[in-house]
């Protein structure tokens, strides 16, 4: 049946192009910095391990940071794509419906209450769970408020804004009252990757991999869920359970990213839109794969910019994502109004 397979070459080349962009950003992220390395030096440095200066820079500074950027970017983008599909709302994202703020509140609370007593290795495992709990609570509160208040797309965003403000105030209160908390740093509030190590990255990194895979496996359910509640129910889907499962997965993804990258904005909002422009509509699995690839490449690109723009000074990466993300989102809104479709 020709018609159904006609686009397969295009689809494969889209994914390959995005994977190439991700690989390029990773290589650039490894070679660029205060000590610039050529591509052969980079590869050699990684192979040599910590026996050389270049190897130590790559293994202990750049590689964890590059991996953190790729994981965080992919997790936030996939989380945003899932939230937008489940809630059928193009304005929804971990940032706009309070998931990020909830994750930040959970992380701040965990850091303030356990930071001084628990060993740092235990904290690295506890932080993603605390962020997840905060993110999940926020998404449950926001979606139940908007359902009760009429379930419109604007109600959801407005209740997200209100809950985000409340949780951000809570996070600020904690960091003010507990100035020794690990999260007092400015870069957590804006989102940044300075000081990320393999130890702080990996519990969250594994969770991100597992949940991206889980969402991919359940792509068929996500496709049907995006048809709307009545159609999905008549096609045999348990809509309430599926919605909860997807929102919990996206809270886990965003929570894990926030636990080591801080409150990064806009990645989860704009990357799914870009992925949809590239991939078209109709397949959630394709959307998730492209969101993960583009999200990783985008956030790594932003991190390179944050390190290089005012070198040797470094900007929190969240500033760069906001400077790039906000105008791009406005551009999308204006284009949509003029009848642009993707």
């Amino acid at each position, binding site marked *: 049946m020709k018609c159904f397979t006609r686009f397969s070459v295009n689809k494969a080349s889209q994914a390959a192009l995005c994977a190439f962009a991700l690989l390029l950003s990773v290589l650039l992220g490894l070679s660029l910095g205060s000590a610039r390395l050529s591509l052969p030096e980079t590869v050699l440095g990684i192979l040599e391990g910590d026996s050389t200066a270049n190897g130590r820079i790559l293994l202990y500074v750049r590689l964890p940071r590059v991996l953190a950027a790729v994981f965080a970017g992919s997790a936030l983008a996939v989380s945003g794509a899932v939230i937008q599909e489940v809630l059928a709302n193009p304005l929804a994202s971990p940032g706009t419906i309070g998931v990020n703020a909830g994750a930040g509140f959970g992380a701040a609370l965990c850091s303030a209450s356990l930071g001084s007593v628990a060993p740092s290795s235990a904290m690295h495992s506890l932080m993603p769970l605390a962020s997840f709990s905060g993110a999940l609570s926020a998404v449950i509160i926001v979606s139940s408020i908007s359902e009760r208040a009429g379930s419109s797309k604007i109600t959801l965003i407005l209740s997200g804004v209100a809950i985000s403000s409340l949780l951000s105030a809570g996070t600020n209160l904690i960091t003010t009252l507990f100035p020794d908390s690990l999260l007092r740093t400015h870069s957590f509030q804006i989102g940044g990757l300075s000081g990320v190590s393999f130890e702080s990255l990996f519990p969250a990194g594994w969770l991100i991999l597992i949940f991206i895979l889980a969402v991919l496996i359940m792509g068929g359910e996500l496709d049907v869920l995006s*048809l709307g509640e009545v159609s999905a129910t*008549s096609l045999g889907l348990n809509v309430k359970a599926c919605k909860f499962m997807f929102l919990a997965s996206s809270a886990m993804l965003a929570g894990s990213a926030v636990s080591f990258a801080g409150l990064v904005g806009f990645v989860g909002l704009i990357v799914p839109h870009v992925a949809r422009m590239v991939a078209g509509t109709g397949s959630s699995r394709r959307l998730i794969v492209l969101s993960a690839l583009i999200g990783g490449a985008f956030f790594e690109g932003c991190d390179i910019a944050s390190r290089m723009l005012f070198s040797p000074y470094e900007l929190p990466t969240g500033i760069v994502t906001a400077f790039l993300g906000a105008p791009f989102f406005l551009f999308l809104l204006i284009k949509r109004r003029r009848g642009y479709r993707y």
Partner: protein
Amino acid sequence: MIKLVEASAGYHARRRFASGSREDENIISNISLSFERGAVSSIIGLNGSGKSTLAKLACGLIAASSGDVLIDGVEISSIKRRKLAQMVSYLPQAQSYANVPIEVLVMHGRFPHLGYPRVYREIDRQIAKKAMDDMDIWELREKSLNEVSGGERQKAYFAMAMAQCTDAVFLDEPATFLDAPHQLDVIDHAKRLRAENKAVVMVSHDLNAALECSDMVALMNRGRLMAFSPPNDILSSGLIEKTFGVEIVEFRNVCGDVHYAFKRRQLY
């Protein structure tokens, strides 16, 4: 095939704390009827009389607050949702449509028949193609739902229900947005499904279509079932005139087919 026994339902038909009663919140009450295989049944009535609620109750989209809904003798609430979707399909009224290509939408009709990891097979593609061919939307398959007219969108949802391949098909106002030739197509499709020994249930505002193509007509008024009889019995009972407040004028075309015209009842 689907039997309702003194069934009542509503969208908020649950007990409100200790003082509330379920009765108050029912949209339809004490409905007893059965939709059989190899028959087209129509549900007619004024706006807000509970037609769509009756259809949703009978296909398991909402739960009965009292009474029983049985499919082949089995209580509908005891059947798993996926299994139920293999037995009953529902074309919703005025869908809030998703922005997906038509071929993707129609393929989703095969979703209840898929095992994990929910990947469509060649047989699913063939069934979806046949459904699109039958609904005359094959040429539009690559277009997104927001790029086509309301009528074409309606046909795409109809094709999705066809691709579900169920024994009972519920069509909630299937002719909405359709122009005259395509309204006639819908009637032909309903008759074709009847010939395939399926139970077809249409919620309809079009009294002519309901009376012409149905084997049984359910007349609803204010949440109550006024009658469930063959069209001729309903016509002769005078219940349509009483419920709708109209006079029915019967006429025949040159082929001898009976048609009905409705005019407002004169109040003098």
